Structures are given as C-alpha cells and as structure tokens.
C-alpha cells in the first residue's frame, strides 16, 4: 500500500515541480567540504559536484563549457586564456569572479595535498593572472594539452572571500566551508545517514527540478527501491531487471563501469619476472567463467591494454589472452616447467608455489576462482585476503607475488604504468607517456596511446580481468532523466556515475541543451 501511495504523490507533483524531494542511494563520503584528499575520490566527488562547480563540465558525450564560457590556447600551448561566465553568484550571494579562480589554483599550487590532481597544477602551472574580473590566464612552465580536462574539469572552484581567511584549509570547520556556486546548497549532513541539499533557485545553468535532494546511505538498494525508501540507485543488470516494465520506474541501458578488477604480477620477483610466465598465467585464467560465476554474467572482459572501450584512445585488435590452458602450458614448457601428473614442476624440478593476495572480502569470490584456474595448470596457490590499508602497504613495498584487486580510472592513462610504481619500472612506458601527454597533434596522441597499450599487452605487468556492468534504476519524478556520463563526471576519467547534476536541472537558454 505504501508504495502505491508514494507513487501517486510522485505523479501528482511531477508536473508542477512543487516542494519535492528526490532521494538518491549514495554511500556516505564524509563532510561535503571542497577538500578531501584522503577520502575515496569517487563518492566524495559525486556528492560535492552538486554543491560546487568546475570550470568545465561534461554532458553525456563530451566536455562542455561551465564556469568558463570559452577558452583559447596560445600557439605553443604554454598559455591558456579563459573567459568566465557572468552573473554567477556564490550561495552567500557574493558574485563569482576571476579572483576566485586565481585564488583557487594558487592555493592548490601552494598546497598540492589538498586535492588529487593538485600535483599537476604545482608541476605545470607557473602563474595565474586575472586581466579583468571575468578573464583568467594560466601560464605553464611546459606545454600540457590535457590540462583542460585533467585539471580544470576536476578542481572545484572555491570562494576567495572565504578560503582566503583560512590558514589551514585541510581541517577547516567553519560553517561557511559549504559555500559553492552549485545547483544545490548543503542544508544538513547527518554523518553516516544522509546529505540534505536544498535547491539554489538562481543557479546560472538552470532551475533545479526538485527543491530538496537527499543522498542517503542504504544497506540494500534493491529493497530500498522496492519500498520507496530511495528514488534512484545504480544496480547490476541482474538486480535491475525486476524494475524494467514497472510503472513509475525508469532504467538506463546497462553500462560497463570504469571500475575494473585486475590480476597484478610482481615483475621484480621470480618467477613472475619472466614475461612468458606472466603471459602463460594470463592464458590460464578463465575470465569468462569469472564473470559468469561472480557477476552472473553482468560484466565484460577488460582489454589487456588497460583502457576502457569507451576511452577515446582505446585501440582494438590487441591480443586478448582468451582462456587457453594448452597455450599456457606450452609457454610454461618453453620456460622449462614440466608437468608431472597433476603437479607442475619448475625448471629445478621443485613444485611451483605461488602466493596470491586478495584485497577486501568482496573480491574473495573472484580470488578463489582464479586460484582454482591456476591450480588447474598444476600450480600450488596459497591465497590470503587483506583489508585495504594493509594490502596497499604490502603492494607499495613490493612484498607480494600475485595480487587481485579492483579500482577505477580506466578511461585514461596514468603517470606511471598502471601498477605499484615502486616495483615495475619501464623507461619506455614513461617516455611514451610523456609523448602522449605533451603531444600537440591529436594524431600523435592516438599513436602514442596505441603503442602504450601494445607495450602493456606484451609486457603484461597486470592483467585487467573485467569491467562490471551497472545500470541506474530511478523513479520517474520531476522530469528527472539519469544518463551515463561518458568519461566519468570530472572529465579526466573521473568517478563513473549516473548522478550527473545536469539531470537535476531544467536547462536555461544557451548554457546547456539536453
């Protein structure tokens, strides 16, 4: 009965956009202030994207001008001139000007620990000038074409008139820390339970569709959706399908997430220091079965090149290491491993023992399956499960042989090879990466990307396993239409999410057309 009633109310109010609340299922990410270096970037970023704005934003497909109306590079890409949007106000009513942008990036330059991407600002930005209240000029020490998306699409602009007075921004607890320009203002944050955001009526990009937006921590999103305890959640397709066809519910098409699970080798230790050994193990792991058993089919096999198929630099046609135990054993034989009955003996005739570390309880299932596959080849595998912090410690110190864990950010490359940098050094990779970052002509970038992916596929410091499929399920209220932001919310391969703030505002005039 309760659900029917809730649905009826939704229908009635949908039209007029009267006082209405929309509840999103969202993990609690701590205080919604702008600076949270240690907090998981994804969830905190999604929560704060409703309260603060960046110079660039992204729609379903591409980056779009946001607080910055337009921008121009100089010839050798060492200077970037931006003209800002006018008439934008902070939540406390003060006007948004170029001084806020200058202050924000000078702050990040001085204190790079405030945000993940701030080290790029420190390394590349020499000075930030404001020729007039609505124009900003970045001067770079070295050309960095990707700066727009990687940094300006990521860093939240903060009000100078508030943070200017704060000597230690990281632990600042003043009530005005929540002032932003975003479509919603922070009304209440109940730790571990919910964020209550209130609409910012004169938001520059459009009128928010609901007066109150609640981001709520829920144990079981499916049950919460059924009972009307939340209005939107992202689910794996197998759980989302019960809502397709139900009146009042809308679903986005299933989407491979930018998170991926991967199997990492310690290239500094025998036997995983041998490239053929790593390739052999890659052939020995049945990734299709992994997806079938762990995700009940809700996943796609990840490319060994380490990039997500949706990434603009994704290269097709790389060798796919499809499950082929015979090929694996052939490779191992070439290295001198002999099969004796059920066991595989190494060149010295000893049994081959491998230790596999697995991060977090939710990966335990996958770990166990990989262990079974490798034992199928005759290897003896000892498996250990560790919590996040101890695991990262072990990885950074290189005290492991094989590791199984998951993280996001597969839309883009990383400064160092996608691997505990402390262990796998590959000068060629770093060279190619520099070329990729500083290439001026798109063609050069694509070629560099292709070479990097080819190198990773051949060298295989880590074998990406799968991308899980996700799908948003949400109530049809206030005309809200969720969509997947290609490339992640913050443009640089940011948090994969269906909660793009554009879906929660009525587009106004030229700023953003759906």
């Amino acid at each position, binding site marked *: 009965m309760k659900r029917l009633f809730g649905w009826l109310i939704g229908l009635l109010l949908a039209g007029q956009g009267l006082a209405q609340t929309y509840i999103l299922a969202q993990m609690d990410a701590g205080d919604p202030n702008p600076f949270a270096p240690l907090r998981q970037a994804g969830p905190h970023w999604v929560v704060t994207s409703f309260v603060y704005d960046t110079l660039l934003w992204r729609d379903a497909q591409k980056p779009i001008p946001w607080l910055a109306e337009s921008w121009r590079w100089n010839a050798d890409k060492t200077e970037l001139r931006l003209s800002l949007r006018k008439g934008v106000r902070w939540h406390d009513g003060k006007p948004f000007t170029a001084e806020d942008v200058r202050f924000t990036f000078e702050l990040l330059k001085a204190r790079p620990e405030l945000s993940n991407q701030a080290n790029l600002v420190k390394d590349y930005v020499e000075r930030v000038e404001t020729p007039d209240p609505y124009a900003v000029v970045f001067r770079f020490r070295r050309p960095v074409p990707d700066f727009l998306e990687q940094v300006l699409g990521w860093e939240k602009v903060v009000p100078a008139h508030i943070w200017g007075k704060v000597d230690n921004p990281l632990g600042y607890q003043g009530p005005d820390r929540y002032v932003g320009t975003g479509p919603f203002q922070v009304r209440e944050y109940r730790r571990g339970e919910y964020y209550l955001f209130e609409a910012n009526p004169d938001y520059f990009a459009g009128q928010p569709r609901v007066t109150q937006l609640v981001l709520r921590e829920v144990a079981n999103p499916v049950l919460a959706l059924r009972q009307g305890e939340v209005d939107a959640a992202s689910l794996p397709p197998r759980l989302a399908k019960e809502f397709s066809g139900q009146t009042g519910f809308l679903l986005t098409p299933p989407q491979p997430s930018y998170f991926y699970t991967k199997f990492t080798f310690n290239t500094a230790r025998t036997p995983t220091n041998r490239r053929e050994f790593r390739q052999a193990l890659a052939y020995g792991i049945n990734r299709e079965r992994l997806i079938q058993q762990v995700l009940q089919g809700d996943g796609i096999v990840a490319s060994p090149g380490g990039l997500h198929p949706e990434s603009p630099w994704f290269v097709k046609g790389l060798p796919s290491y499809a499950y082929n135990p015979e090929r694996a054993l052939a490779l191992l034989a070439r290295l001198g491993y002999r099969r004796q009955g059920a066991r595989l003996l190494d060149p010295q005739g000893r049994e081959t023992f491998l230790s596999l570390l697995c991060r977090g309880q939710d990966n335990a299932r996958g770990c166990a399956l990989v262990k079974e596959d490798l034992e199928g080849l005759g290897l003896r595998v000892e498996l250990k499960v*560790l919590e996040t912090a101890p695991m990262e410690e072990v990885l950074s110190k290189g005290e492991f042989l094989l590791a199984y864990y998951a993280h996001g950010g597969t839309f883009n490359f990383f400064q160092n090879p996608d691997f505990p940098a402390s262990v796998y050094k590959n000068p060629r990779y770093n060279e190619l990466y520099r070329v990729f970052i500083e290439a001026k002509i798109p063609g050069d970038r694509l070629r560099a990307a292709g070479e990097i992916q080819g190198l990773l596929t051949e060298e295989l410091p880590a074998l990406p396993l799968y991308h899980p499929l996700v799908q948003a399920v949400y109530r049809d209220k206030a005309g809200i239409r969720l969509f997947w932001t290609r490339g992640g919310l913050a443009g640089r391969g940011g948090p994969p999410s269906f909660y793009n703030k554009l879906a929660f505002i009525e587009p106004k005039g030229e700023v953003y057309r759906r």
Partner: protein
Amino acid sequence: MKIAILALLAPSLGLLALSFFLPYPRASFPAYLPPGPGHPLGTDDAGYDVLSLLAYGARTTLGVGFLAGSLATFLGAGIGGSAGLWSRLEAPLMRLTDLFFAFPRLPLLILMSLYLRPDPLNAVLVLALFGWPDTARTLRPLVAGLRQAGYVRVARSLGAGGVYLLTQHVLPQAWPLVATQWILEVRFALMAGAGLAFLGLTDPTQPDWGVMLFQAFNRTETFLGPYWIWTVLPPALALASLVLGLSLAVLGRPRQLDPRLGG
C-alpha cells in the same frame, strides 16, 4: 535430556564425517540452483555446492571451535588454578584477567585482523585469547577454596610442592568442573569464531559456516529471492544446533565444586 543433546550434536558430526566422502567444493555449477538431484542443498551465489561447503565447513568451524575452546580452557585452568593456589600470584593474575575483561572485545578483534593474517590458526589464537578469562575467573575461587581443604593442607605439610598439588590434588578434584568449563569455552569459541567470519576477519576462501553466512549476507539476491532458504538456513541451523546441544550439555553438569570437597 541425553538424547536431545546427541540429536543436536549429530548434524555437525554427520557433516564432518560426510566431508571425507564429498569432493572439495569448487565453483563449477550454475549459481543458485535450488535443492534437487545432484545438489541436495542446491548451490550458492558463486556456484559452490552447498552441501560440500557445509561438510568441509564443518572441518574448519569445528576444528577452530574445539581447538580454541581447549586452548582457552587450558590457559584459564592454568592461570585460574595457579592464582587460586599461590596467594602471591593471585593479585597479578587476577588483574590480568580483569584487564582482559575490561578491554572491549570489538576493538581487540579488529586490531587482531590488522596484525594477524586471517587464517584458521590465528583465529584459534584470537578466540582462545578471548575465552580464557572466563575459565580463570570461575576456577580461581574454587581452587582457592580447595586450598583450605583439610587434605590439601595435610599434603602441603608433607612437603608437596605447588605444581604437584595442582596436578595431583586440585585439578583431578576440580576435573568435572574443568570439563564443564571446556564445553562452555568451546561453545563460546564456536559462536565467536562464526562471528569473526561474519565480520570478514577470517580467510573467506576457507570453507566455514560463518563464511557461508557472511557470503550469503553480502549478496543482495539472498534477500530478494527464495535463495536464503538453502544458502542461509543450512549453515545457521548447523551452527545453532551444535551450540544448543553444547548449551544443554552444560546444564546437566556440575557447576559448583562438590561440597564434600571442603570447598
């Protein structure tokens, strides 16, 4: 009452025996098969056969439970006994017991998970560490009472050393009570062990009843479909019946020392 206890202990022992006939559980079946031919208890979310998981799980759960229980009883009897016998030792040992009682278990549990790799052996150590104070606290007053018992004083006057007294006189007398404590400690270890697993502080790839419950709990499907019937009930009932059996077994046993012992 005896038959009830045996009936309750039977399923666990039966499963333990069964584990020697069933193959080691592998994730080689379709997920969430309902109980039927080939899989009397169906399969779980990752395609493991629930019955073989339960059987092999019995090995770990019972193993850890009985080992930890015995270790805790041994420690408790030793410390409690000596605290009772030598008055000099009484204060420091009992202070130590108080500290263990005072220190909240939850944080200690978590701390252990950081230092110790989560394998069954460490689980035994952790559980024994939590279990022994209870036995120490129960045994000390009784042993102290025994110390005043006539014949113990006589033996002491004949030059019997402390250890001799503890092993020859005190413990044999207190034996029925130590056995009761042993059952209580095993019961605690079983419950707490399954609790450790449920909090994800044990090795999830080692089949174990607590891990089965934890895995089922972690899966949303458990609450959506009828799957909980064969993924949650079997391990829970197996554990509950064993613990219930032990609880009833304790009731019939002596809790206080036999008054004739001059206690």
